[in-house]
């Protein structure tokens, strides 16, 4: 997917003025936030599971070469063909080659964020394969020709009326505004595809190193059908998805569904190991696993390693005041919300992605809900520091901040400036608001007033009332 994150501000403005979108976003995030909070409160073991999950993920990353090597060996031993892809272009090439070699003409695909990241569908289509998205939300956005807007609920920006008009226009189905009828249409249309597809394409929620197993978590059941019925199973997964043991899976299953949708567990969890055995009545004869790097080993190298602990639950999106305001598309790449604000600059380049890292108040809500305790606000600050270090920041802002730091660390200068500001404010400003700042800083006052300095500085009032200087206490 071509990143458009450098246009974040423009795209946010568009999102903020779209009333339908605003209603969908607030409905979704509100429901998810409430459901998560309720299910966490109902499960006393959640904090212990967070500690455990966080520790396992970090330890796995610290020895990822070992664990990934183990996964590769075990999966190959059970009949999988492993493909290593350095970047998105290689992953697309590999997928197209597999489809050709396997003679696939129809593929059913489950939701995969990594699939979006490398644009897997278009690569398969270019290789002559009809690719049907089988997750209902993905099916809808595929019909609409749009990218997904939420990790867990890709079509949250669409109303039932919009969905039905799509079904009328693209599938020739009769109009209905009843959601169960819309779901029944999709079930019927997709069932035909599941039964005739030559290949199922999926991501992976977890790769278990000691058994070479793939764990897939879904609610609809598309993940199971697409990985049990077709002759070929193609998996694409980021290298960071590995966990050391199959027996580590339960702790992550206590974290992921609660954090994502507030369910104690998702309706379907599949643990898939190797290919169909001779005695098995169903299951794929061929299993191809593409392990995608695409910048992840670079992230592993440095101070951002913790971001690779992410299990893609979407909790940080739902709780984030920025995501709640602008929705997923404004972020301009595969991963929106706080997790995307860290991943996008790291994976698509600092200059491309840095507007996302800057669009945060660092309120910390994302870190509070993260099931694997990723310190997202700290990572956002690191990215901003990198931006300055690489000379990407506006020199006026750097100069202004230096001046600010100089003034704030010298009480005498601050006091003098406060007095001057107080005079200016009482003479020139109306109603205690500065409607504009000089043009280099006008970004702060384009959409809101800057609070004017008070006529009397706080510390002067304090001194008068308490007779002491607050900093001398």
């Amino acid at each position, binding site marked *: 997917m071509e990143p458009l994150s450098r246009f974040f501000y423009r795209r946010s403005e568009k999102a903020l003025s779209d009333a339908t979108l605003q209603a969908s976003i607030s409905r979704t995030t509100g429901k998810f936030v409430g459901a998560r909070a309720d299910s966490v409160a109902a499960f006393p073991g959640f904090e212990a599971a967070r500690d455990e999950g966080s520790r396992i993920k970090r330890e796995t990353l610290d020895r990822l070469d070992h664990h990934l090597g183990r996964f590769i060996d075990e999966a190959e031993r059970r009949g999988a063909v492993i493909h290593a892809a350095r970047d998105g272009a290689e992953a697309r090439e590999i997928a197209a080659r597999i489809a050709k070699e396997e003679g696939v003409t129809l593929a059913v695909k489950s939701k995969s964020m990594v699939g979006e990241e490398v644009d897997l569908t278009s690569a398969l289509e270019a290789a002559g394969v009809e690719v049907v998205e089988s997750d209902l939300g993905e099916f809808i956005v595929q019909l609409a020709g749009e990218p997904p807007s939420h990790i867990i609920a890709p079509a949250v920006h*669409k109303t039932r009326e919009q969905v039905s008009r799509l079904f009328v226009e693209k599938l020739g189905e009769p109009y209905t505004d009843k959601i169960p009828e819309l779901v029944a249409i999709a079930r019927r249309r997709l069932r035909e595809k599941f039964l005739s597809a030559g290949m199922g394409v999926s991501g992976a929620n977890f790769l278990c190193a000691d058994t070479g197993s793939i764990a897939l978590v879904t609610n609809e*059941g598309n993940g*199971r059908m697409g990985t*049990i019925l077709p002759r070929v199973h193609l998996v694409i997964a980021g290298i960071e998805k590995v966990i050391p043991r199959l027996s580590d899976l339960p702790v992550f299953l206590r974290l992921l569904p609660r954090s994502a949708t507030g369910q*104690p567990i998702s309706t379907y969890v599949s*643990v898939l190991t190797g290919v169909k*055995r001779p005695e098995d*009545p169903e299951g794929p004869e061929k299993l191809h696993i593409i392990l995608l790097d695409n910048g992840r080993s670079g992230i592993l190298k440095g101070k951002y390693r913790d971001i690779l602990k992410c299990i893609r639950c979407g909790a940080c999106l739902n709780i984030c005041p920025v995501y709640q305001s602008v929705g997923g598309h404004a972020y301009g790449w595969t991963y929106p919300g706080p997790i995307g604000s860290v991943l996008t600059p790291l994976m698509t380049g600092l200059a491309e992605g840095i507007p996302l890292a800057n669009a945060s108040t660092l309120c910390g809500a994302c870190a509070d809900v993260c099931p694997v305790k990723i310190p997202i606000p700290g990572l956002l600050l690191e990215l901003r520091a990198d931006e300055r270090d690489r000379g990407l920041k506006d020199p006026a802002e750097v100069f202004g901040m230096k001046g600010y730091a100089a003034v704030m660390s010298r009480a005498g200068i601050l006091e003098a400036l406060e007095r001057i500001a107080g005079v200016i404010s009482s003479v020139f400003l109306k109603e205690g608001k500065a409607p504009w700042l000089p043009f280099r800083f006008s970004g702060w006052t384009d959409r809101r007033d800057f609070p004017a300095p008070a006529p009397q500085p706080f510390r002067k009032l304090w001194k008068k009332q308490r007779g002491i200087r607050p900093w001398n206490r």
Partner: protein
Amino acid sequence: MEPVGRKEELLSRIAVALRGHEANNPASGAAAGSEAAQSVTDRIARFRNMFESQGGNFLAGPSLDPLLPELGEALRISGVTALFSPPGDERARLVAETLVPFGPFRLASPGEIRMVSAPASAGIQTAEFAIAETGTLVQSGQKGKTLLPGLISDVHVAILSPAAFVDRMEECLAALSEDLPRTISFITGPSRTGDIEQTLTIGAHGPKKVIVVLLP
């Protein structure tokens, strides 16, 4: 074909990235808490509570006969006309055969159910485990078992005996790990989606109804 050395190259790239970066916090292995051994009755009660709260239907009785009218009615109102059970699952076959007179039912083969134009069906199968913690059924492909009844039918009927109940997922993974099958399917209630307007809707791709029949 796959160029030789690509996987090695990926692993060495990761090793290089990690070099000089110490592994930190080999922290305490605080597990999610161990509970005392639970009695079977308690396990079943907790399973039932979780299973029903996630949309499952639960039937239990001293034998099959008193449950048949209610089971037949549940299938009938879901529009089921065809019943199928996997070959070799004698218990499920018995349930399917005795159920036929309790609704507009006939026996069908798994092959027939796999067709695009299949009749509305109930897939009846003995489940291997039932997990109390989450109200989850476990169906695996171990020893050549089929997964179709819980996969493509309209109603999934899972036959359970008290011995199948475990407290946590860990126990059933450990039991299955000895001879790890190609597929393990953990099933908690009917297939669902919230993808249109965040409205919970039942019956996306999998069974629209999941019924547990607990027999001694």
